[in-house]
């Protein structure tokens, strides 16, 4: 659990975020809020700007307009690593393991650099980081593969490693970017269970997905992004039935 004290208001507040690529407007004044411990689904057709929004929130892209507040602090313009240290973690759509390292060592990086750098945290030793990493690996089901090289894992194990690495940063908010794409039905359930267990750790989750049944089962709230604009945000059942959403996904 992140040691930063909770600020006033929602955990994450995205206000009027705009992002352009040349002449193309990828995000047009997007608002989004996520409360502590909340489970939010973010859906939308391909190219609607979901990944761009994630990149702007986490700091890997700079938004041109709008503001991003995390835990009461304005993080707009802050480099990504500093946002991670404040408790904002993400997993990547296409897993990006540190291939020269074992599975265990992959987790040491966020443990040393993100969790280890949070306000009030003390320096952790080599052994402590190893123990903590192992604990996380066991909880996601990768305990047996701790010393394998991370480059040779199966698809679902790589997804688990992505999420484990994000958890190792001791975040308060985890953005899972299409963590289940291309997996089999039972593998999807595996990952879903993993994400659901975030609640026990006190971690809020924003799930970006195309797999509808996962989104519906998981989310307390669903936001829909179409062509860079958020068109609806609320109760999952209500959102799915919304005519605009139907139009965006199924056409007129």
């Amino acid at each position, binding site marked *: 659990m992140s040691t930063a004290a909770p600020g006033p208001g929602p955990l994450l507040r995205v206000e009027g975020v705009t992002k352009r690529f040349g002449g193309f407007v990828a995000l047009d004044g997007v608002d989004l809020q996520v409360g502590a411990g909340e489970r939010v689904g973010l859906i939308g057709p391909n190219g609607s700007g979901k990944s761009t929004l994630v990149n702007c929130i*986490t700091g*890997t892209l700079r938004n041109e307009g709008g503001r991003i507040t995390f835990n009461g602090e304005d993080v707009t313009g802050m*480099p*990504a*690593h*500093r946002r*991670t*240290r404040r408790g904002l*973690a*993400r997993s*990547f759509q296409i897993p*990006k*393991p*540190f*291939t*020269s*390292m074992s599975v265990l*060592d992959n987790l*040491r*990086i*966020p443990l*040393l*650099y*993100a*969790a280890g*750098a949070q306000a009030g945290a003390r320096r952790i030793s080599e052994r402590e980081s190893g123990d903590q990493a192992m604990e996380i690996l066991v909880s996601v089901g990768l305990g047996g593969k701790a010393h394998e090289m991370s480059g040779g894992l199966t698809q679902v194990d790589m997804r688990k490693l992505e999420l484990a*690495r994000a958890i190792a*940063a001791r975040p308060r908010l985890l953005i899972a970017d299409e963590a289940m794409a291309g997996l089999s039905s039972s593998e999807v359930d595996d990952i879903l269970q993993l994400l659901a267990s975030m609640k026990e750790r006190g971690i809020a989750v924003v799930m970006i997905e195309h797999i509808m049944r996962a989104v519906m089962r998981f989310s307390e709230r669903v936001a829909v992004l179409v062509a860079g604009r958020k068109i609806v945000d609320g109760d999952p059942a209500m959102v799915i039935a919304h005519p605009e959403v139907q139009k965006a996904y199924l056409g007129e």
Partner: protein
Amino acid sequence: MSNRLFAAIAGVVAAAFIGLNAAVTNDYFFSAAYIVLLYVILSTAWNILGGYTGYVNFGTAGFFALGVYTSVVLFKAFKAPLPVMIVAGTLVAAVAGLGVGYLTLRLRGHFFAIATLALAVMLFTFVTNWDYAGGARGAYVIAPREAPFGFGHYIRYLYAVMVVLAAASIVVARAIEHSKLGRGLAAIRDDELAAECAGVPTLRLKLVSTTISGGMMGLAGTTFPLFISFIEPTSAFSLTYAVNAIAMPVIGGMNTWMGPLIGAVLLGTVQQLVQVTVSSAWNLLIVGVLLVLFVTMAPSGIMGWVRTRQHRRRAP
């Protein structure tokens, strides 16, 4: 093995090498050994940025020359003692590394590589036009006839100094490799974006890496004027240093401190032996071919091959 223990062992090994002074009478051995030790330092330095962090530096000659010419200037101005030259040259090169890094590391890796080359060429042009340091005609740096500490011929003293510097470089490289910094650099090398998102301050670490790497390259150059006695830009900035500094870690293995050491000792020794029989142009051609071959077919180098065999033996 802890850093302290390793440093102690390195110290003992260094002392043994220095002790060779008493056993070997042929001065040529120390000249050849000096060059090999020079390459140990250069390739270890290059590898900190190239192998550990994944940023290729083509301007090794530039940083090396900064060390060389700082010594030349200090010698001409104050007849400065060797330790002063060593510290000054290292600092100057380190600052240059920081500067080049600060200018270009926020951009993609290719730009950094090209910028290092730019630095080398600009320095070359500057030095060639700078008459105080000898300009294009060159400068003489004559070593004192008697070496301090009773070493006799100066070359033996330089050799001993280089043994110490080389050992120190390796101890530093190993310490970095096993430290939190080293893990961070490896993460940057493997996937910079993922590292940044995992909380690694990538820009800061890259700057640390370029500073240390540049400084160490300058360190290698600080004793060179006294070794070669006559410094002129074409030889100080010779492409040989740039290529060897890259080829040796690539051939030896880039992920660990042992790789550059192996590469430098192997390739350096071979070059010294072969120098007498084969022209320097052929020598360089072979190094270039080896570099291309290893980079394409055996990118993990010799150490990589050793590690793979170790893994296979371990797995049932």
